[in-house]
């Protein structure tokens, strides 16, 4: 049903991804799909990499590791954003069309007060992207 699953990952908070990874892996296996891990970074040095290339290597390594664990083909896609704190929604939307994903599976936080002011990235993606979106509550 699905051919390419986009999985946005925050490399700084990999520990929160366990549940989403399991679900993504199951979906990929049952559909015979590939998982593309998408990471968003900045061009200035950040805690996940002193250069965007260092970030990219970490992302590639993460994708390879997950591929081995989940037993499905994986790839990775890095986005360098000018201002990820505010442009994440647009960045993810662009990534969906760039890599041609037909399903997005992402970890999300339980809804809270702040969701009344600005919605989560998953909610935005579900409202604006052509791909199907599945949100995994942490």
């Amino acid at each position, binding site marked *: 049903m699905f051919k390419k699953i986009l999985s946005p990952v925050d490399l700084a908070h990999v520990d929160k991804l366990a549940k989403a990874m399991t679900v993504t892996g199951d979906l990929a296996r049952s559909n015979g799909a590939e998982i593309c891990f998408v990471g968003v970074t900045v061009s200035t040095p950040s805690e996940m990499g002193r250069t965007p290339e260092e970030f990219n290597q*970490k992302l590639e*390594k993460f994708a390879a590791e997950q591929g081995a664990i989940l037993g499905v083909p994986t790839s990775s896609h890095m986005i360098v954003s000018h201002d990820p704190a505010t442009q994440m929604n647009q960045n993810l939307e662009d990534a969906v069309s760039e890599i041609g994903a037909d399903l997005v599976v992402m970890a999300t936080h339980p809804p809270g007060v702040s969701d009344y002011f600005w919605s989560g990235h998953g909610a935005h993606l579900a409202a604006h992207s052509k791909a199907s979106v599945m949100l995994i509550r942490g």
Partner: protein
Amino acid sequence: MVDQSPNTEELEGIPSPDGTTQLIETDYEIGEDNVEGSVGPFGFDIHNPVFLISGMSIVAFVFYTLALPEQSNALFSWLFGAVTKGFDWFFLGAANIFVLFCIALIVTPWGNVRLGGTEATPDYSYIGWFAMLFAAGMGIGLMFYGVSEPMSHFSSSLGGTAAENGVRTDWAPLGAASGDQDAAVRLGMAATIFHWGLHPWAIYAIVALSLALFSYNKGLPLTIRSAFYPIFGDAVWGWVGHIIDTLAVFATLFGLATSLGFGATQANAGLNELFGLPVGSTTEVVLISVITAIALVSVLRGLDGGVKVLSEINMGLAFLLLIFVLLVGPTIYLVKLFFTSLGAYLQYLPALSNPVGREDVNFMQGWTSFYWAWWISWSPFVGMFIARVSRGRTVREFIICVLLIPSMVCVLWMTVFGGTALHQVINDGYTLAQEATLELKLFKMLDVMPLAGITSLVGIMLVVVFFVTSSDSGSLVIDTITAGGKIDAPVPQRAFWCIFEGAVAIVLLLSAGGLQSLQSMVISTGLPFTVVLLLMCIAIGKGLSSERRSIKDAA
């Protein structure tokens, strides 16, 4: 160059950014001093202790100014006088070094180094880049001083010199031009352009270049302390760095808050003139709130969706106003004046920038030294913002675009606005603009030109939007510094700084003389920052030569 293939064996070393660079080896991890958490629904990720110390010392200074207004005012104005008068030679001399250093960077092979690595590509187009440079760097000042400063220097020059006990008491630049109108125009324009031309932009360029270089090419966090790595080594991650960063936050926040306060008084006067809006603290508080609210929307929309868009709108409006005044005003006179002013600037530049043995003491200390301290105290903010948007440019391209082109735009701006006002005085005998208070000069000048209602409205809009673009870019800068160089800290944090800045402005505005005394204090921070900038020149030299070596080794 390190192989960038996704081979896991290669992961130990840090790969270079696009193409060749010489990364600095340090064990410091970005974010290692940061504290993450959340207050209610709002997440935060702040540097410990820079965030707390800067926030608390700002509150402490505001309290001090409110609690002991007379004492604080006396202290800060004494400090201000001592700094701008006692260290005039230091400011003028240092600023000359910055200009010469920048020019040297253009003509030497150091200029070939590209920010972000040999293969890096620019993040922003020229238009977007320029718009942001201007909106952050000068914007509002051009609106107020474009008409007034050429006029002031023209009048004082025309008045000639006066002396008491062998000391000059007049405010004219250099030897004045007693009674000679043409010479007074030339000297007035030269003195104005001197304050808005190469020197201020060189100051910004130095800070911006050192931050961009150490962040994009050396892999250090985007914060002021990183530029000192070649000098202090790993000590910059400790208290030395905390002090430098805190000082930068301090100068930026108070600089923005006091300008916001003064800007509100000025915008209020303009609105009163145009629409009869009452002058008073209520209107001013409303104005600050509106400006802060727009800035808040802008920071929440982010760098590309907010700050850049507003800067471009601003640039477009300013350009239209400039073209309008140029075409509707005395066009031929202005075109001639542009070249005359440029010539006069180059002619008087050596004398105006001479740091010692000057006779025009009032002009040198009251204008030049004041301006240099002012630009320098703004430089951490503007420099950091310029650095943020300048990845992918070569050093030569960077300096040409941050130093030469903005200087030329300032020459054009001052010629058109100042020149039109001078023409009105000299040829038409219209002196209302000359006699008006600072904030009304622009509007009085536009008053006698066609479509005055529309152009004045555009003028007011420009004033407001320029404040917004300073306020939003300032909030981003403060947020980045107080997050230890992270530009992806949670959004509520930048919203906090934006609101905090508006609140400080309102509190100071409502207190007696608070704005004045804290502005004096901010300008006084120009002195330690001058030392900082001189050290930055050394750091840039070291940084660029190691870049050159690594490019040669790679080739």
